[in-house]
């Protein structure tokens, strides 16, 4: 239809959503998810296995010739909407989106089959806070072994394969390290549903998978695609917060009335609805632009990330406030969403970092 990207959902996307949602509704309920905060990570590998193998999610972005499903960023974005809605503790974003994109862009396709099959997972070894185009490798290579360490890497704990940006005299290189060879130290994380870890790579042997130009492009595109698609996860978080709060305010009574009938609260929820619908449009546009390889993809990714990061945090904060005392309890799942939303706001570039990227992209210089 003309040259306008479609921001609605296709029937295929809706059917992907249905299958992800019905599996998560059984196997990733808030009662199951909250256990990871008490250090109980049992069952997480099985949950990912079910999503990766039964539903084929790990294979979505892998082209068919490499054993994948050859789907597009649009379907991956719908998956992330559902993963956000359930704050699911699975490495879809870190492995099936970010690391997979890095491997594809680097032309290092030999690992993609095992990733697509869900047999192994990978992680890009940069701090999870890194914005696209802003990766500064803390690791160097000397005599075939690596030197250095990387902090706050998401997806590293479960990763069988680490993709490590390495600083050399000739520029950035991308190296591959077996997860078992690195010293990976789990960090007690704000968001335990996507726990970060510190990685010490000193003395670890690596394999170079991309040289300067290809590595630069691979890391940049991986982070940009991650930022673009994480917007859909943020939208999913925000939508859950809105839906849950609206339902609660329809049953909760105070002063002899249904609380949701008070205009002060109705107006806050109306404003939140506007924000959440806007987040959905921004996220859809980013996903569609990435899927189409559209020239506007970088602008779309940063605009979506800047907007959706704040939208998710706002929605989670409003959910807690409007639930009153119950919103502050461990029993109510709202806290899981706040922790995911706040961590996501920092992840892959803060809104401020994306504003800076945008300023350059759309010619609105700071000074």
């Amino acid at each position, binding site marked *: *239809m*003309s040259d*306008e990207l*479609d*921001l*609605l959902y296709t029937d295929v996307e809706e059917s992907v959503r249905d299958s992800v949602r019905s599996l998560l509704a059984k196997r990733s309920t808030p009662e199951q998810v909250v256990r990871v905060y008490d250090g109980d990570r049992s069952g997480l590998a099985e949950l990912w296995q079910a999503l990766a193998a039964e539903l084929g999610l790990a294979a979505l972005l892998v082209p068919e010739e490499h054993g994948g499903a050859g789907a597009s960023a649009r379907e991956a974005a719908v998956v992330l909407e559902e993963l956000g809605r359930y704050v699911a503790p699975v490495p879809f974003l870190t492995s099936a989106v970010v690391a997979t994109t890095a491997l594809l862009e680097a032309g290092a396709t030999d690992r993609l089959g095992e990733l697509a099959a869900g047999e192994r997972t990978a992680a890009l070894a940069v701090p999870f806070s890194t914005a696209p185009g802003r990766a500064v490798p803390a690791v160097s290579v000397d005599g075939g072994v690596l030197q250095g360490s990387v902090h706050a890497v998401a997806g590293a704990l479960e990763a069988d394969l680490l993709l490590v940006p390495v600083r050399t005299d000739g520029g950035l290189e991308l190296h591959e390290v077996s997860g078992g060879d690195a010293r990976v130290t789990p960090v007690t994380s704000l968001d335990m549903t996507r726990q970060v870890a510190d990685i010490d790579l000193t003395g670890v042997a690596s394999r170079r998978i991309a040289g300067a130009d290809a590595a630069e492009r691979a890391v940049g595109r991986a982070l940009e695609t991650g930022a673009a698609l994480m917007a859909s996860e943020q939208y999913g978080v925000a939508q859950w917060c809105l839906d849950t709060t*609206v339902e609660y*305010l*329809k049953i909760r009574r105070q002063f002899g*009335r*249904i609380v*949701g*009938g008070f*205009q002060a609260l*109705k*107006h806050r*929820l*109306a*404003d939140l*609805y*506007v924000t959440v*619908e*806007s*987040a*959905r*449009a*921004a996220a*859809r*546009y980013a996903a569609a632009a990435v899927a189409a390889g559209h020239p506007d993809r970088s*602008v779309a990714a940063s*605009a*979506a990330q*800047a*907007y959706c990061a704040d939208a998710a945090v706002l929605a989670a904060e409003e959910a807690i406030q409007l639930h009153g005392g119950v919103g502050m309890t461990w029993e109510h799942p709202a806290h899981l969403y706040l922790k995911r939303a706040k961590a996501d706001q920092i992840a892959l570039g803060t*809104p*401020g970092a*994306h*504003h*800076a990227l*945008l*300023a350059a992209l*759309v*010619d*609105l*210089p*700071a*000074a």
Partner: protein
Amino acid sequence: MTDTDKTIADLAARVEKLLAEHPPAATDRLEFLRARFDAGLAWVHFPEGLGGLGLPRELQAHVDRLLARAGAPDNDPRRNGIGLGMAAPTILAYGTEEQKKRFLRPLWTGEEIWCQLFSEPGAGSDLAALATRAERDGDHWIVNGQKVWTSGAHKARWAILVARTDPGAPKHRGMTYFLCDMTDPGVEVRPLRQITGEAEFNEVFLTDVKIPDSLRLGEEGEGWRVATATLMNERVAIGGGDPRREGGMIGVVAGTWRERPELRTPELHARLMRLWVEAEVARMTGRRLRQKLAAGQPGPEGSAAKLTFARLAQQLSGLELELLGAEGLRYDDWTMKRPEVVEFTGKDAGYRYLRAKGNSIEGGTSEILRNIVAERVLGLPPEPRTDKDVPWKDLPR
């Protein structure tokens, strides 16, 4: 070739034919616009014979682009915003065949400008409280009352009008919708000077105005339902936004930012970038809404778009004055004027700042729109009412 591709190819052929038969350079503007309407290229989502081809609304942009590229005149939609955005879709939805045939063509070409006789001194946000009476007199109606905030009444040939026809019914049920000839005896338009110094709006006094029953739109007593359709279209029209990036207020501020590096500060930059993102996201939200509505009528979601539009226009026009610093202390002209077109982003920065204050009031205040979103979209309990099921004549006023 998909069906859509075929439709686009067919549209391109129709545009070619129109341009060949009426070369823009050699054709009178009005004649070209009439030919474009007759070719179904005015609003392609309207039915054939009424300026359209019964196609998805989305395809209009494609036609507009092709015609603009060929240097064809457009119908200057700003001159007749109420006609195009509100009267036309309502007439299409509720009008008789005669009414559609009579009104849509001169409306679209701009030969006849429209205004909206809805608000009254005592019935703004509570539109259903309106008191203007229409009493039946054989095959006519006799209308008496006062309207206010009537944008463009001084240049309008026709008006959409809601009046009370049954004071014994509860307020939402006793109203009827009419098309009113502004040249009729008894219609008096007085300028209403506003915050900007201009009189873009008017008071309209209706004294024994005689409207034939053939200009009733919809059934007697159905006025509220018809008016609701108009209002939803109004919100989409106001909040629908510009399909271009940096269309509207953000483009004005971004342009100043680029041209005037000496004005830049880090604090203003942070606010500019945040609002740039919000404007861009609002554009995508509007686009998504349009795609959703391509086949259907606007629902309450249009209220959300208008809420965003009003907030952004006010924040951006305020930011612009700060950015301009000392220049922001000046104002262009306080002389009372009655403008030809409604300007949201034209004129100077001070005007824009003051005019934008109306964006959260006209076409439904932001407070009312939030109630609409909360009640009709989110399903929250309605505001407590004291006027429900009470005959309008018994309500305290």
